[in-house]
């Protein structure tokens, strides 16, 4: 009798365990199927969004929201904007010009530099340099910096430096500044004199800036 009772008990436990297993299995299967379906839909939507973001106009560094007062660049000023490339072939930066007194300055040149920040000590940091003709922004409202593609730029960090010569004549250039929900590192302004303390901006402020790549960026999230 005790053996029979033990067998019955064991059978009851087994039945219960199997019943729970069936229920849990059904729930997990259902949620797994739903999860995969939603994931596939989300991946498609993100890929579509990335395709829109990585347009021929360049990949946005940070989303911009509402415009703020333009950032004037006095003679002797240095602007340092951290960048990070998401793909190989980083070959240019495009950023929106500001307008003082309703007009974009039509003449003059400022110096630009692309500096790498991830290099070991002693390695070359300045990757590219050149001058920017401010008059070129008169029609488009954008400044355009181009340099030879950097083959292994994916995931690397850089700084875009803009140097306004001390002897620059008025009207001074300016950059368009916006609020940004992304909270990315903001530009740092030094100058016009070495004694002037650097100007920083609260998180949530961004230049309207796009990164240019030599090849179309990979759209996969």
């Amino acid at each position, binding site marked *: 009798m005790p053996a029979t009772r033990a067998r019955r008990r064991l*059978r009851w436990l087994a039945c219960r365990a199997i019943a729970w297993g069936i229920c849990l299995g059904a729930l997990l299967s259902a949620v797994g199927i739903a999860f995969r379906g939603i994931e596939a839909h989300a991946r498609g939507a993100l890929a579509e969004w990335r395709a829109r973001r990585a347009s021929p106009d360049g990949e946005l560094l940070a989303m911009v929201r509402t415009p703020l007062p333009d950032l004037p660049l006095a003679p002797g000023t240095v602007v340092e904007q951290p960048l*990070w490339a*998401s793909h190989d072939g980083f070959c240019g930066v495009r950023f929106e010009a500001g307008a003082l007194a309703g007009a974009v300055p039509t003449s003059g040149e400022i110096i630009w530099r692309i500096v790498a920040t991830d290099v*070991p000590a002693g390695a070359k940091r300045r990757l590219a340099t050149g001058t920017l003709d401010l008059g070129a922004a008169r029609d488009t409202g954008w400044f355009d910096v181009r340099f030879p593609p950097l083959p292994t730029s994916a995931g690397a960090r850089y700084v875009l430096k803009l140097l306004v010569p001390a002897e620059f004549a008025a009207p001074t250039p300016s950059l368009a500044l916006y609020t940004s*929900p992304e909270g990315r*590192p903001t530009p740092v302004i030094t100058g016009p004199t070495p004694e002037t303390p650097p100007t920083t901006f609260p998180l949530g402020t961004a230049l309207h800036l796009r990164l240019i790549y030599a090849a179309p960026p*990979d759209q996969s999230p």
Partner: protein
Amino acid sequence: MTSPPSTAPLPPPPTATADGGRSFGSDLHRVLRHPFTAYLAATTAAVVVLFARAPRPYVVPQLFAEDGMWSSLVHTRGFLHAAFHGRPESDYTILGNILLLEAGKAWCHLVHGGDPLEYARSCALVSYVFVAAVVSLPVLLLRHRLPPSFLAALWLAGCVLPLGIHDRTFSGFEILGRVSNAGFVCLYAAFLLVWHRTTAAPRGARLAAVDLGLLACITTNPICAAVLPAAVWPQARAVWRGRRTAADVARDPAVVGLVLLAAAAAGLCGLPNPWKIRPREPVPPLDVAGIVEIALARSTLYPVLWPVYRHLGTGLVLAATALVVALVARVSTPRRRMVYLGGGALLALVAAVLVVFRPELGTHLRGYDGTFPDRYFHGQNLVGVALLVTLAADVSRRALHRRWLRHVPLALVACWIVAAVLHEPPWRLAPSQTLRPEGRLFALRAARAVTAGSFVDERFAPDPDGRFVLIPNPEGTPRKFVFPREPLIRALAARGYAVAGAANPPLRR
């Protein structure tokens, strides 16, 4: 005279039938009707809803904000150190958050073989499951308190509560799927656990389970300790009315359990020191309008006012508050008065804490211009939704004598749910899901860190033979990630990343 004992054979027990199928069928039926099955079903459905609302943390995994810092501590210094020293300010423990990160680590080991690059995705999944489990708690704990239709409505309302996901802010990016902000819903869990504790009077293992849940809530979000006094309300009322003596109450298992719970919480957390919490930047003091916005509009009445939130003003909010209080006082049933009083007191206390210790919230809310940062209000809003649905159930119960009237409250709740779903449609990718498009960036940064020899020991000090890799945040902010070295190198190599120098000198053990 007594009758002689019967000699007829005893009937076999019900399960011991000759037909094993019928026995299994009855077992399956019992399992399907078990309340825990309903709870599991609600949790799994809630996981799907929450994932649909904010899929980004799983689809493009990323250790966001404190998730990265706490994960690094979990990997280097272990569970206990991370739980008790995870916050640099050392103002409170984060036991629940670290438990979730450990669960993510365990899931990563189980499913992905411990691949560090899948760790963020595992943590996202754990976060969805945790929030879904909390939102589904009413199905288990309040099944004898609310009618099934209102239980279902409460569950669904908790799943679709507006969280600013479709705004161009970080709310949709940082709440669902993130472990760092999962602790805010502990307030709702604590409220439900105390409600269940005081009404269902659990005993034995069930009481222990409830108290363990409360302990986890308090050691994750210390403001949950505010619900503890309500847990002894039935006993205190019995003493007040002379039905029981104080000595009798002191021996009550519920009271003994509560004392042990409070002692354990105090021992683990210490006494909270909210003055350690300071805003990062100086903020202007709050005026009356700011206090009304934080304390009443956003924190307390948001479940009622969210459709018209951006059109509110101080006067309207005060009028709405008076109306809600009058409505609750008028239509609530006497047996539920303590639920409303307790819930209202909890909301008031949390609102006061936010006003005093988080005045910068006024700067973010910007005079009803937005609802960000929604994470601070998630727990209180869920409590508000629970009170709202409970009130609807009370009105429905009071209107039993009028058939047409008693369906109106549920219909109104259903309209609320439909409006919330249309306000933040889960079938549309929200703008917040596209913020900070990391993609493969983390793996690229990890490969660079390994190639550059960025190795550290468990205290984050540079060590060429260190067992961990220090990965700077791709965005250049001071946050860094620390992962175990060998699993990371294996994971990168498996994905085809060139990690030159990965055949590293042997580690000193």
